[in-house]
């Protein structure tokens, strides 16, 4: 499309023409086209054996996906649970560990952000522990708790605490000096300044920290559950032991969709607290 077409296109009042030309529609069409091509390539490739031996076809995978998502809740023993049950188990672990982490990380982050001394004192811990892979905590968790459920929660807790903590402290420490000056010139008390100015001002940072933490929690739970015995991660591990690849693909799709949904919730929250500020 040329520039002149683009500019006249926007002048045409809403109608069928402008719908066909609108950016969202074009993007959607491109998405559907590429998806169709991808599925076609997969189907043909699997049928003619271009990929590894035993690679399922696209149609078989979609059929399984349809079956699993329309029968999410059945129970035929520990190794044959509906994917809905497994999803709920994973979500519960994430919810508990993540909420605990947030309840610790947000107040601690505020404290650290407000006080330069606390910032310096706690920074070494954060810097040292942040880069440790969450799975490195797994043996420790199993040893301490001797319980797979608690260990799962513990792993989520320990891995999702850092982004929230760091973002909160960063946001609080970086509150626009003008806002603090306003509070100061009015003679606001320390508490009023913290609750009415500093925390709302840092809220976009806090929420984006929570968003990153949620992403990490969702990444980590799948890996951790491969060793824990229930949940979506275990589902994948179990299907790997059965060597049934379509179900693994189904689980990957479900994990991706749930992750997308969770992320979208936080994207919405970020927008809600931004009030014209970007980020």
């Amino acid at each position, binding site marked *: 499309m040329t520039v002149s077409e683009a500019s006249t296109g926007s002048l045409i009042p809403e109608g069928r023409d402008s719908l066909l030309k609108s950016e969202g529609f074009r993007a959607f069409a491109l998405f559907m086209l590429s998806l169709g091509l991808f599925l076609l390539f997969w189907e043909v490739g699997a049928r003619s054996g271009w990929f590894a031996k035993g690679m399922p076809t696209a149609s078989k995978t979609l059929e399984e996906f349809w079956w699993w998502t329309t029968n999410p809740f059945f129970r035929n023993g520990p190794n044959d649970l509906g994917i809905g049950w497994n999803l709920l188990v994973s979500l519960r672990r994430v919810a508990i560990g993540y909420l605990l982490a947030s309840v610790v990380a947000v107040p601690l982050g505020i404290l650290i952000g407000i006080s330069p001394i606390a910032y310096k004192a706690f920074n070494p811990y954060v810097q040292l522990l942040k880069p440790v892979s969450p799975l490195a905590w797994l043996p420790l968790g199993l040893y301490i708790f001797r319980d797979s459920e608690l260990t799962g929660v513990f792993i989520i807790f320990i891995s999702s605490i850092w982004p929230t903590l760091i973002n909160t402290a960063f946001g609080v420490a970086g509150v626009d000096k003008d806002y603090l000056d306003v509070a100061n010139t009015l003679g606001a008390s320390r508490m009023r300044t913290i609750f009415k100015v500093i925390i709302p*001002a840092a809220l976009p940072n806090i929420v984006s920290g929570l968003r990153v933490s949620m992403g990490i929690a969702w990444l980590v739970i799948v890996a951790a559950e491969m060793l824990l015995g229930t949940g979506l991660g275990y589902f994948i591990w179990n299907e790997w032991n059965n060597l049934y690849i379509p179900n693994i693909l189904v689980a990957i799709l479900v994990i991706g969709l749930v992750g997308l949904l969770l992320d979208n919730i936080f994207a919405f929250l970020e927008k809600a607290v931004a009030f014209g500020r970007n980020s």
Partner: protein
Amino acid sequence: MSLATMDGAISEEQRSPSAQVSIRNVTKVFPGKKGFFNKLTGKASSNFTAIEEISMEIEPNTFVTIIGPSGCGKSTLLNMIAGLMPITGGDILLNGEPITGPGPDRGMVFQNYALMPWMTVAENIRFAVETVDPKISAKRRDRIIKEHIQLVGLTGAEKKHPHELSGGMRQRVGIARALAINPQILLMDEPFGALDALTRGFLQDEIERIWEQQRKTVIMITHSIEEALLLSDRIVMMTRGPAARVDEILEIPFPRPRNRETIEQYPAYSGLKAEMERHLFRETRAVEEARIGGKK
């Protein structure tokens, strides 16, 4: 108002007993970076004297404008009056009492508006009113909010958030917030600096109109000669920094209410304007020359 500021010192008899704000031999030194670590990284710097031995007396109900070359220390002086910045030497007295910190007797209007983005127009004003008087009754509070929104001509925009307003409207909120706490003194640091010329003109007229109504003591910083002449009773011209001083204080005798069209017709207008231009030009050129010289 004392004019004995050229040599900095101010003698007892020049101190006005009726002054609302007395600035006496005020000096501000920003401490340099010292210490082994800063020397190692080449960041060490010596102390920087921003302003030195500045004195002036400000009578109640006067509109005072401070003008001077960029970086001379105008904001520093205003922040010290606001109590946001410690004073290195000398005293600033408010009604005879030394200033020790910020307080609701001084209302501040910021160059970048400094409105809380998460609060609506009414909430921003409400925050100020409730901070200053936590026990205020809801009825009185709401009346004050309403009156001040009306005063700055923002009726109808109460529930808007700052990002939905234009720059000029935002600064109206900033002015309403500063006035809503009923301060004795209004401090404004380049309140229209971020606005386009037309909006700036509108807001200057608004300030002139509001000032006619309330006659509060105002200390305003500006870079605009016309703005200073339109609004002020006195114009304080500062020299360039470092160690900036008060060069001269001009009395602006034009009767009020003033109007930007008619004010230029007073015979004294062009003389005052030329004098200010001369001063600013001389100081700014000296700053530029010092900068070029320093680079060689």
